[in-house]
């Protein structure tokens, strides 16, 4: 079987493309259409025309935006951006392909509030209101926290509950404001200013529970951002739920994802601080125990030392002093935890008397030949030079006579 081609009319490529273009251009839908998709393969040509594709999970649509229209774009299109394009669809005869002739392009899913938000955010950012180095560090242990929020509702309850669980040492002052509707932003800003005039607050948390963008709007107002910026007291913002970000969040010294989260970030945890305290107590006791052991060794050494033995005081008296000191020290050690303070201060007073310097103060002296302590006549010869330490200095002496004696 063969097809009789000669019975069919023949067309040129140009005729076909023109025919299809006419079909498309007669179609009302294709002549004025909004297309939603994601930008890919975006190119700006030196001619000023922009070429890109819109794609979704099913496929792509080629697009062109001519210089005249592209000049009116209010944002910079990037690959991956979700947009809505407006234009008409027609054929580009050179490639034999249809494409969207794009007259306007808008970011997808953005209402007028988003636009206002973005404009304000950019302006305040340029002005430096969100600068990291302007941010005030939070106090580690706030003593009094002001909550600038609605006095009713879940947000204030959550904050008070979490603050109370974690750190009841911090007092809480609820500064009631309206958090939505006409005048709310002004009230929030005024409250932040007012708290800065008080001397008793060291941290501010401002926020509210979740809501629509309209309901959260007070926290997107410039007046609130400026009040936070000029606040000398650190401000934590706690607006809505995790994904909600407001202008106040950018201006705040710390952004919390929710009111409860703000309370967690604001204060230390009582249990953790208790553990830290227990550790410090343990280290305190361990270190003093070590020091007392040292003291006891020192005592033992001094008792046995020839410096003391060679001194002229009745040995019995020194033994009494030493024994009493040792008893005090030992009782201090035995009762380390029980009644430790009294025992230790007694021991401290006793040990003071034992100090070699005190001994010198009572009229004893230490003789040295060079670096060696001279405790026996056998250590020095007639004519030797000795240094004799007394309470306030050293006497240089010469040995004129030697005589052995027993002091016992």
């Amino acid at each position: 079987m063969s097809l009789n081609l000669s019975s069919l009319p023949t067309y040129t490529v140009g005729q076909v493309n023109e025919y299809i273009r006419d079909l498309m251009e007669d179609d009302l839908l294709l002549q004025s259409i909004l297309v939603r998709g994601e930008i890919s393969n975006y190119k700006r040509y030196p001619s000023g025309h922009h070429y890109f594709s819109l794609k979704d999970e099913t496929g792509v649509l080629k697009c062109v935006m001519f210089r005249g229209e592209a000049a009116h774009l209010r944002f910079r299109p990037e690959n991956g951006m979700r947009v809505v394009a407006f234009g008409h669809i027609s054929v580009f005869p050179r490639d034999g392909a249809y494409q969207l002739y794009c007259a306007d392009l808008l970011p997808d899913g953005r209402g007028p509030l988003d636009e206002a938000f973005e404009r304000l955010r950019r302006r305040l950012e340029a002005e430096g209101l969100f600068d990291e180095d302007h941010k005030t560090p939070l106090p580690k242990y706030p003593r009094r926290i002001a909550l600038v929020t609605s006095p009713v509702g879940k947000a204030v309850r959550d904050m008070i509950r979490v603050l109370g669980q974690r750190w009841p040492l911090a007092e809480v002052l609820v500064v009631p404001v309206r958090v939505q509707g006409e005048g709310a932003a002004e009230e929030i800003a005024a409250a932040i200013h007012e708290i800065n005039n008080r001397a008793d607050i060291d941290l501010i948390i401002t926020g509210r529970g979740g809501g629509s963008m309209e309901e959260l709007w007070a926290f997107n107002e410039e007046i609130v951002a400026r009040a936070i910026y000029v606040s000398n007291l650190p401000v934590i913002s706690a607006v809505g739920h995790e994904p909600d970000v407001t202008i106040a969040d950018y201006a705040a010294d710390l952004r919390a994802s929710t009111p409860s989260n703000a309370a967690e970030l604001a204060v230390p945890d009582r249990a953790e601080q208790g553990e830290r305290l227990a550790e410090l107590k343990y280290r305190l006791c361990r270190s003093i125990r070590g020091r007392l052991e040292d003291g006891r060794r020192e005592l033992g050494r001094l008792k046995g030392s020839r410096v003391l033995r060679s001194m002229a005081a009745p040995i019995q008296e020194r033994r009494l002093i030493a024994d009493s000191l040792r008893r005090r020290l030992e009782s201090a050690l035995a009762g380390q935890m029980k009644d430790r303070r009294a025992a230790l201060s007694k021991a401290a007073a006793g040990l003071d008397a034992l100090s070699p310097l005190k001994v010198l103060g009572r009229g004893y002296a230490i003789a040295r030949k060079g670096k060696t302590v001279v405790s026996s006549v056998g250590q020095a010869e007639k004519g030797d030079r000795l240094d004799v330490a007394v309470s306030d200095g050293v006497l240089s002496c010469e040995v004129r006579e030697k005589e052995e004696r027993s002091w016992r």
Partner: protein
Amino acid sequence: MAVKKQTFEQAMGRLEEIVSKLEQGDCDLDQSLKLFEEGAKLAAQCEKQLDEAEQKVSLLLENGDEVPFAAGED
């Protein structure tokens, strides 16, 4: 040594300072015992603050007065 009434932050800070001083071990015995005594008082004071603290919540009124505040249910 008299320990003045300090904030939790000051007391903990001083306590840490004392512990690290004692641990370095370059104080004489007399000084060490005094530090220990001060540290023990600070630790007791901090412990008391942690154990006995009760959250105080007030509401600021328009006239500047403060009244006890209890966040009720909606």
